[in-house]
C-alpha cells in the first residue's frame, strides 16, 4: 500500500505505446459504442428509477418494457427543424455543442477497464492508453468541455442564455476545483498519476475506504461538476427555461444533454478508478480461488457494475433531494468544501510523513486525535458573532391604496376597511342630508 512505486509505474505504462493499429482501432470503436450504449441505457434507467421513487411506472411502451425510449427520443430530435436565431453568432453557435461533446468522449480513453486479455490472439490490456499524467489529462479535458457551455450561452445572442451560461460555468469551475483537490490525497498514497498505476496500487485496500473524506468530497463535487440535481439550478426547467440551451433546437440540443450524460459516466468512471479500486472485484469475490475473478474478462463486469452503481446514486439524489439555490451551493463550495479539502490534504500529508519518518500508526492516531481535540475546544471557545438586533419596523398606519394601487397590510399593520372613494359617498351624503332634513 505504501511504497516507492517508481518501478511499477514504468512497467505499467510501458505496454501502451506498442499496440498494433488494429487493436487500437477496435478499442476506439469499443469505447465509442460503450459510451453511446451506456447513455441510452442511463436515460431510460433514470426515468424508470425516478418514476419508481415517485410510485409510478416509467416509460414502458417503446421497445421491450420501454428500454428503447431514449433511442426513439434521440431519433425524433434528429428529425426536428434546425433553427438558428437571428441574433446568434452563427459560427460559434454551431461550434459550441461540438466543443461540449468531443471532450466528453476522451476521458474514457485513459480509464482502465480490465487487466491483460487476449483479443484475436494479441495480449493487450483493456484500456485505450495510459499516460504518466493520466488524471491530469482527465482534468484538462473536463476543463475544455466547460468552453462548450460558455460559448453556447454567449453565442445565442440573448440575455437569458448568456446569464445561464455564466452561472453554469461559474458553478462547474468551482466544483472542478474541489474535484482537483480531492485527487491530491490519492496521489499522496499512490505515488503516481497514471490510472493503471493507481488501480494497481489499490490491490489490497481501496482508497475510498482509507481516504473516506476525499471520496465524499469527490462524490459531492462530481454532482456539482455535471450540473446534476441537487445542483442543477442553471438548467432546471422551471427556473431559466433551459438556461444556456434556450435557443438550441434539434440535435444540437440533444448533443448538450448527451455531453451531460457522457460526463456523468466519465466522472463515475474516474471515481471508480481512483477510489473504488477500478476493475478489481470487491473483497469476498476477489479472494475466491486466489483471484480468479480478477483475470480475463471478469473485471469488465465489476467495472461496469461500479459505474452503474454510481450512476444510480446520481439518479437517487435527483429523485430525493430538493434543488439548492444558486448562492447556497456556491457558498457551500467555496466556504465549506474548499477549506475542508485544504485542511484534509495537509492532515493526510502530515500523517503520511509521520509514518514515513518511522512513527507507529498508534502514535500518529494519538497525536492526530490530540490536534483535533485542541481545534474542537478552540472552536467552541470562539465567541459567537452577535447578530445585531433588527430594528423594529416602523409602525405605519395601513393605507390600502399606497402607491396608487391596492396593497395588502405589511406585518405589524392592521387591516382597516378602506375608505370608499368620494364618487360613491356623494349619494349617501345626499340621502343622509335629505333624511336629516
Amino acid at each position, binding site marked *: 500500500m505504501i511504497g516507492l512505486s517508481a518501478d511499477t509505474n514504468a512497467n505499467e505504462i510501458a505496454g501502451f505505446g506498442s499496440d498494433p493499429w488494429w487493436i487500437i482501432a477496435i478499442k476506439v470503436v469499443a469505447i465509442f459504442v460503450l459510451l453511446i450504449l451506456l447513455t441510452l441505457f442511463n436515460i431510460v434507467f433514470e426515468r424508470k428509477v425516478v418514476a419508481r421513487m415517485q410510485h409510478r411506472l416509467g416509460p414502458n411502451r417503446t421497445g421491450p418494457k420501454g428500454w428503447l425510449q431514449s433511442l426513439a427520443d434521440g431519433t425524433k430530435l434528429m428529425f426536428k427543424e434546425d433553427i438558428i*436565431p437571428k441574433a446568434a453568432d452563427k459560427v460559434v453557435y454551431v461550434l459550441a455543442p461540438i466543443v461540449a461533446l468531443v471532450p466528453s*468522449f476522451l476521458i474514457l480513453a485513459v480509464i482502465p477497464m480490465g487487466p491483460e486479455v487476449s483479443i484475436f490472439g494479441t495480449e493487450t490490456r483493456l484500456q485505450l492508453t495510459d499516460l504518466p499524467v493520466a488524471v491530469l489529462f482527465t482534468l484538462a479535458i473536463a476543463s475544455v468541455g466547460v468552453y462548450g457551455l460558455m460559448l453556447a450561452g454567449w453565442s445565442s445572442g440573448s440575455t437569458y442564455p448568456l446569464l445561464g451560461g455564466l452561472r453554469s460555468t*461559474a458553478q462547474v469551475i468551482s466544483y472542478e*476545483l474541489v474535484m482537483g483537490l480531492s485527487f491530491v490525497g490519492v496521489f499522496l498514497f499512490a505515488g503516481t498519476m497514471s490510472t493503471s498505476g493507481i488501480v494497481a496500487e489499490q490491490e489490497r485496500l481501496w482508497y475510498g475506504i482509507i481516504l473516506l473524506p476525499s471520496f465524499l468530497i469527490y462524490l459531492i463535487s462530481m454532482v456539482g461538476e455535471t450540473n446534476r440535481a441537487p445542483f442543477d439550478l442553471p438548467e432546471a426547467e422551471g427556473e431559466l427555461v433551459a438556461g444556456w440551451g434556450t435557443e438550441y433546437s434539434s440535435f444540437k440540443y440533444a448533443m448538450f444533454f448527451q455531453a451531460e450524460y457522457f460526463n456523468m459516466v466519465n466522472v463515475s468512471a474516474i471515481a471508480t478508478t481512483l477510489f473504488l479500486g477500478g476493475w478489481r472485484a470487491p473483497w469476498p469475490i476477489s479472494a475466491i480461488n486466489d483471484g480468479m475473478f480478477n483475470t480475463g474478462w471478469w473485471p469488465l463486469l465489476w467495472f461496469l457494475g461500479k459505474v452503474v452503481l454510481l450512476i444510480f446514486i446520481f439518479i437517487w439524489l435527483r429523485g430525493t433531494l430538493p434543488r439548492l439555490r444558486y448562492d447556497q451551493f456556491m457558498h457551500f463550495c467555496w466556504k465549506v468544501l*474548499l477549506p475542508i479539502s485544504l485542511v484534509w490534504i495537509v492532515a493526510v500529508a502530515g500523517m503520511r510523513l509521520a509514518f514515513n519518518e518511522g512513527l507507529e500508526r498508534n502514535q500518529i492516531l494519538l497525536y492526530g486525535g490530540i490536534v483535533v481535540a485542541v481545534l474542537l475546544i478552540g472552536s467552541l471557545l470562539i465567541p459567537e458573532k452577535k447578530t445585531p438586533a433588527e430594528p423594529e419596523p416602523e409602525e405605519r398606519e395601513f393605507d390600502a391604496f399606497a402607491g396608487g394601487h391596492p396593497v395588502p397590510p405589511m406585518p405589524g399593520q392592521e387591516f382597516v376597511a378602506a375608505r370608499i372613494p368620494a364618487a360613491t359617498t356623494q349619494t349617501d351624503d345626499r340621502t343622509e342630508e335629505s333624511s336629516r332634513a
Partner: protein
Amino acid sequence: MNAYAPILGLILLAAVFAVGSVAFSVVAGPKRFNRARLDSYECGIEPTPQPVGGGRFPVKYYLTAMTFIIFDIEIIFLYPWAVRFDHLGVFGFVAMVTFIFLITVPFIYEWRRGGLDWD
C-alpha cells in the same frame, strides 16, 4: 508520442460523429420559415434589443473565474509534490504547507471582503 496516438483516433471519431450528426439533422429536418421563430425566446414577449456580443454582465462572475485560476494553479503545484511526496521528507512537507498557507491568506482576505458572496 505513441501513447497519445489512440487519443487522436478517438478525437477523430468523436469529431466525425458530432459534425456528422449536426449535418444530418440540418439535412433531414424540415425547413419551414417562420419569422417569429428566429427571434430570441423570452417567454413569449417581444425580445428586448441586445448589444452585440452580449453587453455587460455582473463582475462577480469575473471574480469567481479569477479565484478559480488562483486555486487551479495551486492544484497544479500540489500534484507533482503529492506524487513524489515520499522522497521529499520534512523539508518538502514544510515547504508545501508554507505555500498552502500563503494561498490561504488571500483566500481569507477575499472571504472577509465579500468576494465569495452572492454567487
